C-alpha cells in the first residue's frame, strides 16, 4: 500500500496527540472535580461540618485519573492526526491530502508524487518536538479553583473562624465518635465470637458513624439523627434476640399472672396484679422492686407459717408465669426461693429473691442481649452528650433557653415543624379546652398556647392547641399592657386557679412550620423539665414510664 510508510509516521503523531488529550482531559476532569468538591465543602461548611481533606485529595486524584483515561481513550483517527500535524507544522495539508488521496488513486503520478513528498516530510517529524507536553490553558482555571477549594477546606478548620459553640460541638463529636468506635469494635469482637450477622451489621454501622463523627465528616444534626436511627436498630435487634430466646412473651406472662391474681384474694392478689401490670409494661425496674420487697419481707424473719406459705405460693405463681420467657432465670430463682421458704430456709429464700430481682432488673436477657443493651445505652449516652454539647456556650438575647416549668422559648414552639417527618411517626396534637382552669397560659408564643392543663401534671399539655375558645385568652395574654413583647415572642408566667380543665388527644401530623432553632438544641431543656416534674410530683409509676417513653421517642 502506497501510504503504508506515511501511516506509520502519522501513527507516531497520533500516539502523541492521545497523550496530550489525556493531559488536557485530566486537567478538565480535575477542574470539574475541584469545583464539585468546593461546592460540597461549602455546603458542609454551611452545615457546620468539616469536609474531610484526605477524601478530597483522593477524589481529585481519581478525577484526574479518570480524565486521563477518558482523554487517552478518545478516538483520534490517522486523518485527524495528519491534519493536526499539517496545522502545527505548516505543512499545507500535505499529510492529510496524501493520506486521503493515496487511498483513492495511488497510481496517479501526481498522487504518487504527493505521497512521496508527504512521506518524506512525515519522516522528519519528531512528535515530541512538534507536540511538546505543555500544560493546557485550563491549568490556570484549575489553579484558581484549587486555591478556592483550599480556602473552603481550610478556613472552617481555623479556630478563629469557629464560635465557642462550634468548637465545643466539634470536640464533643470527636470524643463521642471515638467512644462509638470503641463500642463498635468491642461489639464486633463479640459478634465474631458468636458469629452473629445481626450484631456484626450493627457494629459495622456504628463504626462507620463513629469514624464519620471522629473526622467531623457529618454535622451535629445528622450525627444525632443517625445515632437515633442506630438506637432504634439496636432496640430492634434486642427485641429480635429476645424473641428468638424466649418461647413466651412478657405480655403472655402478664396475662397468666393476672389470671392467677383473680383466683386469689387480699394482699397477694394486689401484689400479683401489680406484678402483672409491671410485666405488661415491661417495666423491669418495677418488677424487680416488687421482688425485692418480697425478699425484704422474708429477710425480716417476722413471718408466720401461713404467711411463709402464702409468700412461697406467690413466688411459685410468679415463677410459673415467668417460665419460658426472657426472665427464665428469675423464674428459676423464684422457684428455688419458694422451696427454701417451705423448708424454712429464710436467709436462702431472701437471697434467692434478691437474685431474682437482680435477674429481673437485668431484663433476664442473654449475653448477646446484654451486650446489645450496653451498646444501646452507650449510644444513647453519646447522643445525650452530643445533644448537650455546645449548649454551655453563651447565647445572647432571647435565643437563650428560659428555665422553669412551663416556660417556652421562641424556638421551642416552632420546633415541631422543624422536626417534620420524624414527628409524624408519633406526633400527637392535644386539643385542650379549659374553663377557668388558669388565669393565663404558663408559656405563650404567637403560634401556640400552652398552660392551664399543667395541673394534670403531664407534659403532653405542652403541645396543647387551644383554638377557638382559647383565642380570646391568647389575645389577653398578648395585651401590650401585660407583655413588653415589642412584637417579639416572649413568655408569660401564669397562675393555676381552681376550675375544671379537660383535654382530648388527637393523633395527627404536626402543623407545618419552620424552626428558628434546631430541634436538638431545645430537646434537652424539655427533657430536663420533664425529669424535674417527674421527680417533684406524685405521678403514678405507669404514667412515669409513659412520660419517659414519650421523651425517649422524641430524642434527637
Amino acid at each position: 500500500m502506497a501510504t503504508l510508510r506515511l501511516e506509520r509516521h502519522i501513527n507516531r503523531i497520533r500516539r502523541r496527540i492521545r497523550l496530550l488529550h489525556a493531559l488536557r482531559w485530566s486537567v478538565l476532569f480535575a477542574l470539574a472535580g475541584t469545583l464539585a468538591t468546593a461546592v460540597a465543602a461549602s455546603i458542609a461548611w454551611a452545615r457546620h461540618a468539616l469536609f474531610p481533606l484526605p477524601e478530597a485529595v483522593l477524589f481529585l486524584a481519581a478525577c484526574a485519573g479518570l480524565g486521563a483515561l477518558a482523554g487517552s481513550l478518545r478516538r483520534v483517527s490517522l486523518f485527524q492526526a495528519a491534519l493536526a500535524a499539517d496545522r502545527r507544522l505548516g505543512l499545507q495539508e500535505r499529510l492529510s491530502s496524501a493520506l486521503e488521496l493515496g487511498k483513492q488513486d495511488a497510481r496517479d503520478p501526481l498522487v504518487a508524487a504527493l505521497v512521496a513528498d508527504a512521506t518524506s516530510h512525515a519522516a522528519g517529524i519528531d512528535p515530541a518536538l512538534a507536540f511538546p507536553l505543555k500544560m493546557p490553558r485550563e491549568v490556570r482555571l484549575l489553579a484558581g479553583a484549587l486555591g478556592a477549594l483550599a480556602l473552603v477546606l481550610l478556613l472552617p478548620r481555623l479556630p478563629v473562624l469557629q464560635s465557642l459553640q462550634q468548637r465545643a460541638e466539634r470536640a464533643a463529636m470527636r470524643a463521642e465518635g471515638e467512644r462509638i468506635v470503641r463500642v463498635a469494635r468491642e461489639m464486633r469482637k463479640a459478634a465474631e465470637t458468636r458469629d452473629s450477622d445481626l450484631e456484626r451489621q450493627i457494629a459495622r454501622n456504628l463504626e462507620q458513624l463513629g469514624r464519620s463523627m471522629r473526622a467531623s465528616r457529618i454535622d451535629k444534626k445528622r450525627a444525632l439523627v443517625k445515632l437515633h436511627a442506630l438506637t432504634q436498630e439496636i432496640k430492634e435487634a434486642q427485641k429480635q434476640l429476645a424473641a428468638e430466646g424466649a418461647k413466651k412473651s412478657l405480655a403472655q406472662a402478664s396475662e397468666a399472672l393476672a389470671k392467677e391474681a383473680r383466683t386469689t384474694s387480699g394482699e397477694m392478689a394486689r401484689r400479683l396484679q401489680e406484678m402483672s401490670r409491671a410485666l405488661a409494661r415491661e417495666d423491669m425496674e418495677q418488677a424487680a422492686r416488687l421482688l425485692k420487697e418480697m425478699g425484704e419481707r422474708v429477710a425480716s424473719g417476722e413471718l408466720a407459717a401461713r404467711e411463709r406459705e402464702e409468700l412461697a405460693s406467690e413466688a411459685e405463681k410468679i415463677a410459673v408465669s415467668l417460665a419460658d420467657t426472657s426472665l427464665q432465670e428469675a423464674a428459676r430463682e423464684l422457684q428455688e426461693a419458694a422451696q427454701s421458704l417451705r423448708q424454712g430456709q429464710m436467709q436462702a429464700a431472701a437471697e434467692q429473691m434478691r437474685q431474682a430481682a437482680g435477674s429481673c432488673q437485668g431484663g433476664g436477657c442473654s449475653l448477646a442481649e446484654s451486650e446489645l443493651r450496653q451498646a444501646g445505652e452507650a449510644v444513647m449516652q453519646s447522643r445525650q452528650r452530643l445533644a448537650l454539647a455546645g449548649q454551655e456556650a453563651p447565647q445572647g438575647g432571647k435565643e437563650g433557653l428560659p428555665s422553669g416549668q412551663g416556660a417556652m422559648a421562641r424556638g421551642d414552639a416552632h420546633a415541631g415543624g422543624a422536626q417534620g417527618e420524624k414527628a409524624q411517626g408519633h406526633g400527637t396534637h392535644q386539643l385542650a379546652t379549659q374553663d377557668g382552669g388558669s388565669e393565663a397560659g404558663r408559656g405563650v408564643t404567637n403560634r401556640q398556647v400552652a398552660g392551664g392543663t399543667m395541673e394534670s401534671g403531664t407534659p403532653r399539655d405542652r403541645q396543647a392547641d387551644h383554638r377557638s375558645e382559647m383565642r380570646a385568652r391568647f389575645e389577653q395574654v398578648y395585651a401590650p399592657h401585660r407583655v413588653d413583647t415589642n412584637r417579639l415572642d416572649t413568655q408569660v408566667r401564669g397562675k393555676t386557679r381552681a376550675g375544671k380543665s379537660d383535654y382530648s388527644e388527637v393523633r395527627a401530623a404536626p402543623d407545618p412550620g419552620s424552626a428558628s432553632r434546631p430541634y436538638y438544641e431545645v430537646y434537652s431543656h424539655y427533657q430536663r423539665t420533664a425529669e424535674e416534674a417527674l421527680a417533684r410530683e406524685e405521678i403514678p409509676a405507669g404514667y412515669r414510664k409513659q412520660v419517659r417513653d414519650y421523651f425517649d421517642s422524641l430524642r434527637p
Partner: protein
Amino acid sequence: MNEVPMTPTTEIAARAEAYRERYAAVCDEIRKVIVGQEEVIDGVLTSVFAGGHVLLEGVPGLGKTLLVRTLARVLHLKFSRIQFTPDLMPADITGTNIVTESPSGGRQFLFQPGPIFANVVLADEINRATPKTQSALLEAMQEQSVTVAREVRRLEEPFFVLATQNPIEQEGTYPLPEAQVDRFFFKLLVGPPCLEELDAIIDRTTGTEEPELRVILDGPALLEMRALCRAVPIAPHVKEWALKIVMATHPDSELAPPQVKRFVRYGSSPRGAQALVLAAKTRALLDGRYNVSFDDIRRSALPALRHRVLLNFEGLAEGVQPDDLVQEILESLSPAGDGEIG
C-alpha cells in the same frame, strides 16, 4: 521545523520544476516593465496558467494595458487589442462577412476575422462599450468559438481575454452584464503605486533606455503547463471547504454569514468554484506542492469570488464591498482540522 527537501525525482517532479521556472521567468520579464503590482501580476499569470480570463479594474493610467501588452510579448502569442468605445459594434470584435470580388469577376462573401481571433485579446476599457457589444465576447470566452452568419468558427488555443475596465462609477461607462462578468476567471483590482514604485516608474519611463523583453513561452508550452496544473489532485476535505465557501456566498444558504444574508442578491455560480479550485491548484504547483492547501484556497478566494457576489439594493446603498463579504465568509468557515490539538 526544518523543511525536508522534496525527494520525488520523477517526470512529474521535473515538469513541476519547469513550471515554476517558467512562471518565475515570465514574472521577471514582466517586472522589467511593470513596477510593483505584485498581486496583479501574480493574479494575471495565475489566470493565464490556469486558462482563465482576467478582468482588471482600476482608474486610467495605472498600467493595466501595459501589463497585458507586456505579457503578450513575453508569451510569444498572437495578440490583439480592442479599444472598447460606446460606438463599437459586435461585428467589430468578432469579424464579419464582406463582399469581395473574385479574380473571375464574380462576387462572394468572405469572412473577415475580427480582433477576437488571437491568442491574447486585450479588451481595453471594456465597460465603455454598450452591453450589446460587450456580449459579443460571451461565446468566445466560454466556448472559445465565434458564430458569424450561422457559421461557428473555433478560436485558436490558447485563448484568453484580458479586459480592463474603469470603476463603474465613472461617467460614460456601462456595467458589464452578470453573465459576462461571471466568465472572467479573476477580477483584479489595480491600485495606485506607492511612492517608491512611482519613483521607479518615472525613472523607467522618462529615460532613454527601454527594457528588452525575452520570449519565455509559446502556445504549446503554455497548454502543457495548463494540463499539469489541472492534474494537481485536491483532497476531499480541502475541496469541501472550497465548495462551502462558494455556497456561503448565497444568501439563502445555511452557511452564509449574516452580512451575506443581508447584503447579497446572488452568490457565486459554479464557475466561481471552478476558478477557486483551479487557481488554488496553480498556486500549489508554484509553491512546490502536489496538493491543494487551505491557504491556496484562501489566497484565491478574493479574486475568484469578488465579481461573482452580486449585491442587493441595500448592499449597494450601504456601500458594502464584496471583498469584505468574502473575507467574512472565510473567517466564518473554519477549515477541517481546527481541533483542540492541531
